[in-house]
């Protein structure tokens, strides 16, 4: 039996061993598969495992590496993909009963990109049904049931990339792919104590991914460090003619190597004073400590407030309208009643009723806040705050009534398509992870990665992992 530690090594550490031929991709894949088969059900982490594909890809990787054809840091590295990414010939359930038997005959671009760099897909990660696009009241809103947090299985992982968070935290794969329309990478990363990158809108192709709100949907990595996120992001970023939302070729690609850090610019950090109304006591303490760390290791840290305005309201309307359009046939056919969650069964009817003029007003407001934020990033390279004001919540919590608070940064960040990263920055007294969030200017994904990386060079929170027996 391999030691527990290997399951929590970063992609960078695994890659070194694989490149040096000290670690076999086939053996690594097999032990991850064994662990996923054993522990995956404990956390409801997977929609399904893909052992045949995994072993075939791992054998191919091993053969190539043995021949001296090493493709790079993801070659032979096992990962999981959120179950809203199409994989040819496999079920892609979108976490929802009405799509339980859905099979596509093509791959999502992200899947092809990861295949191209030699990564090994061990399974499809569980998720909140339709990524929460029809609303949900409980953590159990999933075809795969509630995802349990590896740090405390009475708590939730957050959503909608719930399985992706559980998989990375529990060491069931080296990394996972998540998606975010509003909070679905940042929140699970914070709750599960992993590093998660929400790239700039349009930087990663959504071709083959379930559409929720097409003007806000984004795909990004969840991994064990900011550096891992950078390496994965480098593999999946880029213009794609099959996704018209992607940015042009010259702005899409992302390259990363540790050597570029030698030429990194000193980062000016804006510490947000109004991102959250209050922080839970267990969160406040680690966040205060994180602030002190930033002041010690970053070139400048100054307080700053987010602009005040109806940004969340605008985001809500954009999501509601676009999701109603994305799932119109589900709503109109009445099959929406097959969703698990009581809120998901009815919210689409309400969302369908928005006025075009209100949607356009929301898009006008989006333009205004985009300009305001762009000005703010003339002064700061990144802005920072807690990723969430609370730690992981109980599985049975009514999210609608008991977890409601303003989230202006989430609203602004997502309607403006700004990049963000959540990195672990400590624990509550109940040993639940706390995340620190950096948000950057649109297109400046490197700044948030650099911020996360710098923080992790001086802390070891990202190296902690839950004890799993």
């Amino acid at each position: 039996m391999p030691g527990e530690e290997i399951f929590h090594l970063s992609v960078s550490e695994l890659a070194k061993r694989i490149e040096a031929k000290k670690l076999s991709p086939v053996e690594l894949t097999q032990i991850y598969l064994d662990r996923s088969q054993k522990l995956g059900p404990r956390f409801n982490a997977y929609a399904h495992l893909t052992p045949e594909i995994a072993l075939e890809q791992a054998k191919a990787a091993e053969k190539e590496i043995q021949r001296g054809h090493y493709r790079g840091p993801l070659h032979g590295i096992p990962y999981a993909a959120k179950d809203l990414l199409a994989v040819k010939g496999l079920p892609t359930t979108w976490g929802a009963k009405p799509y339980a038997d859905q099979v596509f005959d093509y791959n999502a671009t992200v899947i092809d990109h990861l295949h191209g760099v030699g990564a090994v897909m061990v399974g499809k990660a569980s998720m909140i049904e339709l990524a929460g696009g029809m609303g949900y009241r409980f953590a159990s809103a999933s075809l795969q049931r509630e995802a349990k947090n590896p740090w405390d299985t009475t708590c939730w992982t957050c959503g909608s990339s719930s399985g992706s968070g559980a998989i990375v935290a529990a060491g069931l794969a080296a990394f996972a792919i998540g998606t975010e329309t509003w909070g679905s990478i940042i929140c699970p990363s914070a709750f599960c104590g992993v590093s998660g990158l929400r790239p700039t809108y349009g930087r990663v192709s959504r071709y083959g991914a379930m559409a929720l709100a097409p003007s806000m949907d984004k795909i990004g990595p969840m991994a064990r460090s900011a550096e891992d996120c950078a390496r994965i992001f480098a593999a999946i970023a880029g213009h794609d003619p099959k996704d018209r939302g992607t940015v042009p070729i010259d702005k899409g690609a992302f390259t990363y190597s540790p050597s570029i850090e030698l030429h990194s610019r000193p980062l000016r950090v804006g510490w947000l004073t109004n991102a959250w109304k209050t922080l839970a006591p267990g969160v406040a303490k680690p966040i205060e400590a994180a602030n002190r760390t930033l002041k010690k290791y970053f070139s400048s840290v100054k307080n700053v407030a987010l602009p005040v305005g109806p940004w969340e309201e605008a985001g809500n309307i954009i999501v509601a309208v676009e999701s109603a359009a994305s799932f119109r046939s589900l709503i109109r056919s009445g099959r929406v009643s097959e969703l698990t969650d009581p809120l998901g069964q009815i919210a689409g009817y309400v969302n369908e009723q928005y006025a075009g003029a209100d949607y356009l007003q929301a898009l006008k407001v989006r333009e205004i806040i985009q300009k305001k934020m762009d000005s703010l990033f003339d002064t700061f390279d990144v802005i920072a705050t807690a990723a969430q004001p609370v730690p992981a919540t109980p599985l049975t919590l009514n999210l609608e009534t008991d977890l409601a608070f303003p989230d202006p940064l989430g609203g602004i960040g997502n309607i403006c398509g700004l990049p963000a990263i959540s990195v672990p920055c400590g624990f509550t007294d109940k040993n639940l992870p706390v995340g620190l969030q950096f948000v950057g200017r649109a297109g400046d994904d490197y700044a948030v990665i650099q911020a996360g990386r710098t923080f992790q060079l001086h802390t070891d929170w990202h190296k902690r992992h839950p004890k799993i027996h």
Partner: protein
Amino acid sequence: MGNKSNSAISRREFARRAALASAAASLAPTELLSSKSIPAPLPAQQPANAPKLSPESQAEVESRIQAIFAQYGNRLSEAQKTDIRRLATEAQPPLDRLRAFATDNGDGPGLYLKPLIERERKPLAMPATPKPAATPKSS
């Protein structure tokens, strides 16, 4: 846990976010918008903590609810109808705030749309000798 206030917006992904939608009077069936078919706003089955709305907003909420019930009522249980009534009511204050935010006529919407541009289409064959314009162009 989170602080809930009148202005608080549900944080947890789309749990309430996608549900906190409002209806468009302009999209509702015409007959439902007429004063004959819609009686004065009825605060029927309003929960105790329902937001206080202006008469205009309350009328809009009611028209939205009636539009949903007219279209989908036969597939909804009484409990679901009550829930829809609550959701539609709670959606109104954020909508009112958004509408109250001053935007100018010239403010462009922040669309993420790249229209098809000519160079992405198949290039057209150029005639060997361009024909002279027969008549002056008008705009």
